[in-house]
């Protein structure tokens, strides 16, 4: 237990100090935080519940548009803000900006969770790949449809309110870094807390055999919906922050970016190891580093490198890093292994 506290303390301190140690990497670090949040929340569905969703991007995009719309709409007419691709200029005072952003984030978290609850009953009744494809369809449809809605900028995109003019140049980066870091810590702790309750066991039961779980008297649908709402809540928050960070929302390329973010969150969780608490965190971190590295060193070839990486990950490390470690050092995961039994199993194969 003691070690745990030291570890978490160290990470917390590192997280707080990071933007000051690496001031040039603030935006990278903020994006890393967001990626980790997405991977953790995906893991609640894909890892613990066994529902491989591509649809979490829906909540992420929804959160992004909602946060920006509320931030604008609280002080200025939204329609005029986006008219003509955002030609008119309205300036938020610092107070307005931060108030708007706070309220925006709250809305960006709550509304996606409600949406998840509303559609959950219909969508979560599907299983296996039908669920995966249905959620994929949801994400793409949301992107295409939001691209046709005038009030949020339609095809011209939505420029989010620019960060107010404060004297320090670094303020914007720091603000968004700490926002995303705090949400990350919050997400991590919340998910960790949930994982220590019966709720996680129910989710695992659903993953392992939903019919049996139902036969045991568990209202699986209720738990599935709650699980999805939790994911949606944090995805929405992540989306809201990302919108502010990028500064420009485009329906299919930034918000409902299913082909990139939507798939990446799955890959990160799998790379790290699904069904573990730390797996998505490690996976997201490594993935981000890989990706940034490819960007720098394989200009133009980064997709080739990324494609090969993905194929290698899913073929050779489908259990992810944590799964691999667990296989290799089961004792360290608190599992008691009978060596003789293990050998017997290996020979059986």
């Amino acid at each position, binding site marked *: 237990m003691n*070690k*745990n506290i030291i*570890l978490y303390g*160290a*990470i917390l301190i*590192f997280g707080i100090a990071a933007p000051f*140690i*690496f*001031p*040039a*990497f*603030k*935006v*990278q670090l903020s*994006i890393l935080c967001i990626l980790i949040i997405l991977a953790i929340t995906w893991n609640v569905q894909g890892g613990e519940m066994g529902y491989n969703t591509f649809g979490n991007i829906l909540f992420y995009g929804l959160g992004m548009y909602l946060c920006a719309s509320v931030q604008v709409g609280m002080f200025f007419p939204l329609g005029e803000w986006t008219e*003509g*691709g*955002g*030609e*008119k*200029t309205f300036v938020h005072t610092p107070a307005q900006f931060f108030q708007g952003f706070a309220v925006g984030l709250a809305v960006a978290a709550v509304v996606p969770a409600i949406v998840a609850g509303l559609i959950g009953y219909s969508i979560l009744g599907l299983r296996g790949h039908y669920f995966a494809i249905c959620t994929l369809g949801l994400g793409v449809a949301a992107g*295409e449809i939001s*691209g*046709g809605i005038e009030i949020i900028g*339609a*095809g*011209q*995109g939505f*420029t989010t309110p*620019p*960060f107010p003019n404060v004297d320090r*140049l670094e303020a*914007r*980066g720091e603000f968004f870094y700490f926002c995303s870091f705090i949400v990350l810590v919050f997400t991590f702790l919340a998910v960790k807390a949930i994982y220590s309750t019966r709720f996680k066991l129910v989710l695992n039961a659903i993953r392992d055999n939903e019919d049996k779980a139902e036969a045991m008297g568990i209202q699986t649908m209720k738990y599935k919906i709650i699980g999805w709402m939790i994911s949606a809540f944090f995805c929405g928050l992540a989306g809201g922050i*990302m919108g502010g960070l*990028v*500064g*420009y929302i*485009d*329906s*299919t*390329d*930034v918000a409902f*970016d299913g082909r*990139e973010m939507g798939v990446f969150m799955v890959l990160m969780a799998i790379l790290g190891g699904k069904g573990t608490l*730390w797996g998505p965190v*490690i996976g997201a*971190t490594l993935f981000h*580093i890989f990706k940034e*590295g490819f*960007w*720098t060193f394989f*200009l*133009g070839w*980064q*997709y080739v490198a990324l494609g090969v990486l993905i194929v290698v990950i899913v073929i050779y490390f489908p259990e992810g890093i944590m799964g691999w*470690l667990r296989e290799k*050092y089961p004792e*360290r995961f*608190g599992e008691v292994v009978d060596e003789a039994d293990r050998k017997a199993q290996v020979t059986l194969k």
Partner: protein
Amino acid sequence: MKIKNIIITFVSAIAILFSTSVVSFAKVVGDKIILGAAISLTGKYSSNGVHTQNGYNMAVDRINEMGGVKVGGKTYKFDIIYYDDESNPKRAAQLAERLISQDGVEFMLGPYSSGLTKAIAPVTEKYGVPMVEANGASRSLFTKGYKYLFAVLAPANLYLDVAIETAVALNGGKGVRIAQAFEQDAFSQDVRLGILDAAERTGSKIIIDDKLPKELNDMAATLAKVKAVKPDVLVVSGHTKGALTAIRQIAEMKVDVPMLAMTHCDAAKLSKQHGKNSQYALCASQWHKTLTYKDDFFKDGMTYAADFEKLFGYDPPYQSAESSAALLVFKDAFERANTFDQKKVRDALAATNMQTFYGNIKFAEGGQNVDKPMVLFQVMCDDAGKCENKVVAPLKWASAELIHPIPKWSER
């Protein structure tokens, strides 16, 4: 519990990785002025991204060959750091941030397309990094009061303005009926705004107003509507894919319209890919090689086109020409500022008033180039099926007369 140790090592490994990967490019290293650019090398805008990059590269080589940039009595050479923004605004914004804060770039060149420029402009503005961009034409870029953004091109809403006015003039000053189809992206939607304005001004009516999804390569439905309502002008804009798809399906469906106005004809190599089918298409362009502007580096448009073709093997579209011009503007501004101070370079840029092979360049308050009109050319083919783009408006440079109305398909 040793797993925690692994995690600790892991975290520190990342820390080390981050700290060692700081490769510091300063703005000026030795005799090099380093410019940063995020370009779409992959993704849906990659063809135009490559045109942009070719334009940049050609100008950099040319300026370096011809003696480089003289600042403070010393000669410097240009160098560009490229990143691939994957045609994605989110990536573009991150890359701008990265170029500025990680790589230490202090002067930027623009990306391709308005959407990406819109994503990058707030970042460069925040850091006070002067950016000369050549491919972000959206009008909303110039109404935001950006101080460090300079565009060598005319805003998007002016692209097809002339076409509508010409159509109205040919119609005896009475308003025309317009059908339009625009892709769902910032640039095309801005062209649409221009048409809406022009329509209002001239009393024209818009009878079809379609927005094409980005992934779509089929406009049969729109064209069927066009066929049914018979408008006087059909306007299509959707980067290269839009232009190619439109011509293919107009020819196949035998859609007769008196005037067909488009964008991106030259980037799409329309006359080469479609031959006679593309005949009579009226195209908005920032530049055409027959314009008579001159400068010291590329001489004039015809020489530029010939040199470009020698290097890259195709006729330069205007996207390449304007990108090359962006470098000339930077060179000029550096020499007049005679320093690398960002504020002073910015002021020098704002005071730019020069002629390049691409056109006159003079920036308005908002950063757009106000001294260069758009040109319209029409694809014209001879009997042998060889097609050429000929300038038809404005009259000053016209090398051919506008053919209006377009002959019906049955008579071609």
